[in-house]
């Protein structure tokens, strides 16, 4: 999966039209426990990386999530 597709998936999960690198995850209405599990699943399936709930929380921003899959 390329980074553009990853961004599209994040926008779907967060139910917004667009996302920006400096967007803070906690500010999204839809950023809840299910969103975190969905992001972990996407990263595991498409980037073969295992990340924890804490890793997602620590990422803090969209850029932080993108850094996790680099």
């Amino acid at each position, binding site marked *: 999966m390329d980074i553009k597709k990853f961004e599209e998936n994040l926008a779907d999960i967060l*139910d*917004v039209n667009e996302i920006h690198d400096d967007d803070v995850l906690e500010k999204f*209405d*839809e950023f809840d426990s*299910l969103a975190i599990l969905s992001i972990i699943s996407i990263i595991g399936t498409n980037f073969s990386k295992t990340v924890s709930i804490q890793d997602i929380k620590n990422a803090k921003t969209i850029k932080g999530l993108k850094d996790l899959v680099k």
Partner: protein
Amino acid sequence: MNKEYLLITGASSGIGRQCAIQLSKQYNLILCARRYDKLEETKSMCKNPQNHLIFSYDLSDTENLETSLIDFIKINDIVITKFLHSAGTIGLQSLKLVDSDFMLNCLKINLVSAELIVKVLSSKRYNQSALDSVVFISSNISNMGAKGFSTYSASKAGLDGMMRSLAIELAPKVRINSILPGGMKTEMTKDIDANEEVSKRLESSFPLGQGKPQYIADAAEFLFSDKASWITGQQLTVDGGRTINISS
């Protein structure tokens, strides 16, 4: 807020058509099915036909369903607050003749399309998170078994399983319930009803007598109403007592 609508799939005949006729007394409807001419017929039977819209779509095309529905909402500048999934294909087939195409067609229409529609309607981006109530027309076979119904019953049991999980995932914004009708004479069951012996046997198994689509529409009306405001994730069996009848 944009004008509010109730979406009914399978609105061209049987239970879906009857639900449209009854629900049109209270709601603006979007009538969805494959055949435009049949939907026009349903629309003309509804109260205030001018208030209702037609979304002619083949639900077996699950690939394009989300984008088509999103476009429909956008073009008409509306929101959809309620959804009744009555579309269904009966898929009666001996196991010996079941193949993956047969199964996938049944599952796409009865099950997959329902979840994809709920996905779009519960979205903030595409429907302003306007969805508040969903009713799936399942079947009393969801919890039972019958020869030749393996695929159909899998689709309906799947629908009810999905209903319960979505009821949790989308609470408290959205209530989701299923109605489990018993067999009744509709367009979908005409091949089964044509067999006199089967038809007679079926008829004698209903303690309250043979059902009518109107009974299902009454139950749907209730589940969409405020009187059901603390009910979610439930299967409501409306089958004239057939599935609790253990007398020989």
